[in-house]
């Protein structure tokens, strides 16, 4: 029993690291640009296909293809902000929601057209590799994914707290108008924020590829988890999103283990409803420290 419990917690934490990359991106865009990006999951999907095609065509290891998927998605993010999101920022919530929701549908359908609905997988030497500590097994591919996800989260934290651009980004998130009075160009800061958020989604895609199939609708699972984590972790709070993502990974895993194989999400959504009922502002404070 105890071993089963420990195993479920480990499995949950490991996948929670991937959820964290997606939810940190969503909460970063929300915190800085004040827009909800419903298409975040589709950028995970794009990251997966980038790694899939690099692996199937050139034999590039998915972990190595991070070096291509992350910059590619950063560039896509900058273009997305500059040419699309920027134009709806002055409008109300509805045009903003329609924009990212339409983008999500568009990207899924383009992927269906180009790649078909088939599941694509990449076999790596470590895809099936496991080791165990006592009775608890660790899948190597998932452990690597988790470790890199935590490393990228830490790098983001260092960027936001240790660089001038990062501090300017936090300042613009807290008070856009006053940030402009300091000489901060909000358009530039927003482009970087969306670029970084999409790069993290792309990283999630590449990290998933050794143990998870790519298909056009795959992003929906991850964006769903990301939104729950973003709400639990308090909108705009990056540390909150990270912790909530790990909690949700564990909750889902415990649900699968102890409620039923298809019931993992029930536990997650019960957590969401209880939080909204009793702590409607999420479990943590405001913008992340």
């Amino acid at each position, binding site marked *: 029993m105890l071993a089963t419990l420990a195993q479920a917690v480990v499995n949950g934490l490991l996948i929670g690291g991937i959820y964290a990359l997606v939810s940190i991106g969503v909460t970063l865009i929300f915190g800085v640009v004040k827009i909800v990006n419903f298409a975040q999951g589709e950028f995970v999907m794009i990251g997966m296909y980038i790694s899939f095609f690099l692996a199937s065509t050139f034999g590039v290891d998915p972990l190595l293809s991070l070096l291509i998927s992350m910059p590619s998605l950063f560039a896509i993010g900058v273009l997305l902000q500059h040419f699309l999101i920027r134009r709806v920022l002055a409008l109300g919530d509805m045009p903003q929601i329609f924009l990212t929701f339409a983008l999500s549908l568009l990207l899924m359908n383009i992927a269906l057209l180009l790649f078909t609905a088939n599941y694509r997988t990449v076999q790596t030497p470590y895809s099936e590799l496991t080791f165990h500590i006592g009775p608890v097994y660790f899948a190597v591919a998932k452990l690597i994914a988790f470790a890199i996800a935590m490393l990228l989260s830490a790098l983001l934290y260092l960027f936001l707290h240790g660089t001038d651009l990062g501090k300017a980004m936090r300042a613009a998130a807290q008070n856009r*108008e006053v940030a402009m009075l*300091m*000489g*901060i*160009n909000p358009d530039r800061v927003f482009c970087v924020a969306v670029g970084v958020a999409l790069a993290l989604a792309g990283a999630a895609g590449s990290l998933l590829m050794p143990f998870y199939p790519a298909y056009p609708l795959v992003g929906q699972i991850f964006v769903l988890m990301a939104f729950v984590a973003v709400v639990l972790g308090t909108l705009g709070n990056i540390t909150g999103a990270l912790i909530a993502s790990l909690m949700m990974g564990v909750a889902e895993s415990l649900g699968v283990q102890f409620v039923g194989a298809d019931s993992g999400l029930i536990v997650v959504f019960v957590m969401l409803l209880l939080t909204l009922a009793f702590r409607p502002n999420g479990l943590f404070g*405001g913008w992340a*420290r």
Partner: protein
Amino acid sequence: MLTLSAVSARYGSVPAISDVSISVGEGEAVGLLGANGAGKSTTLRAISGLIRATSGSITFLGADLAALPPHKIAELGIAHVPEGRQVFPELTVKENLEVGAYIPSAKAERNRTLELVFGIFPALAERRNQLAGTMSGGEQQMLAVGRGLMLKPRLLMLDEPSLGLAPVVTDATFAKIQEVHAMGTAILLVEQNVSRALGMVQRAYVLESGKVIIQGSSAELANNKQVQAAYLGM
């Protein structure tokens, strides 16, 4: 140095200021006085580009500000300390000041300016690692002024620095502003507290319903019957 010629601006369809003409010379301290809603803050917002003038011209050191976005206007050396302090609450005191020196010319001298600001406001040095949002109103006002100074401004625009402060804290704040002015920074001071403002500026404009109704030296305004009756309670 700064010249506004017949500037008008509006919020939506509501005219906020009309035909405002004011100027600030190099190293001068000028007041923009008047009651709540007279258009003082709107004038500052038009200068720093947060709202667009609908007519008239605004020039600063020969540059036409009308075509520039706020962050470019800041780069010319205009620091606007907005009404209600508006420090970045979840940044530390030191981070607030660092962000204040974001423009390239200020960044190059950031550490030196930081020491200077800590010299003027020792309380900020003691609290450098505290989150700005957790400080008292007076301390936040000091930080807002200090953050403005970090830009190494040629012109410092202060919007109601005494707002919400206890009289003794207001005294301290004004003493610090005078110290900054003595170092050669031009100041455009917006105040409802007319008697106190006249004590530190050389010239002032009185705004009413978005128009300049009286202007002159501090001494002239202090002796003006209309000013005395309307703003000095005499």
